[in-house]
């Protein structure tokens, strides 16, 4: 029992260091970059945003909301980010990005809609990384 629990325990203890640095955060970064690549291909091929892009944005938003919940739970548990103001700024911005991409993509059913999805999906991982940095700045 203890043997099987060890990797899990190490995972949770790693997550305890920073709630926004773990498998979930990495997944949002990877998903966002894959989506950006897909949207870029669509834009280059002169295609409007397709279902994959819109579905991808929805999944990305769910993952980011989950990340926000994890962060809020950690805050509820007494943990504090290094730069609280910047952290919340990035967190709020982050969960607004996929909806912004969605709305603009629906407004622009041309290749430029795909380009917008690509641009916002390139920015999203940057915001995730900044979010991680603003948590860790003190404990760093």
């Amino acid at each position: 029992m203890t043997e099987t629990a060890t990797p899990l325990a190490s995972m949770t203890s790693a997550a305890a260091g920073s709630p926004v640095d773990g498998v979930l955060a990495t997944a949002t970064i990877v998903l966002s970059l894959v989506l950006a690549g897909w949207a870029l291909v669509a834009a280059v091929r002169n295609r409007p945003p397709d279902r994959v892009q819109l579905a991808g944005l929805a999944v990305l938003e769910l993952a980011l909301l989950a990340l926000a919940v994890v962060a809020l739970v950690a805050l509820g548990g007494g943990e504090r980010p290094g730069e609280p103001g910047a952290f919340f700024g990035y967190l709020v911005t982050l969960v607004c990005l996929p909806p912004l991409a969605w709305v603009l993509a629906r407004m622009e059913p041309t290749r430029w809609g795909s380009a917008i999805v690509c641009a916002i999906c390139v920015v999203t991982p940057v915001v995730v990384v900044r979010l991680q940095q603003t948590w860790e700045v003190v404990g760093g």
Partner: protein
Amino acid sequence: MVETETHPPATNTGPGRLLIAVYLLFAIAATSRAGLQIATRFAEAPVAYLLSALAALVYIVAAVGLARAGHAGRWVALACCSVELVGVVGVGLLSLADPELFPDETVWSGFGSGYGYVPLVLPVLGLLWLWRTRTR
């Protein structure tokens, strides 16, 4: 009054919408950064933080100008893109010549290097887009 020839060219569709999206991102980034800096540690670098606030305002107005798409919107966008270009090049040069002047980073420091040089490219793209969509 015949007004067929003067209908304003659309700056808010196609590539223009992408441009507006990027301007929106920078408006959000610069506004939150400036707001936070001014609220928490204004005394440390008032010039840099006021400049951040100015940059934020310019990005917002530029996005609105492009989105409004009329003649007035075009002039507003033209003014904003010009101010941005002058700002990013000016602040870039100043921060090279005299780093003491800007003790903390702004959006425009080092020609926008902290933001992947997008602040330098953005006004140029904006001006090109306004040129492309001009009335003949």
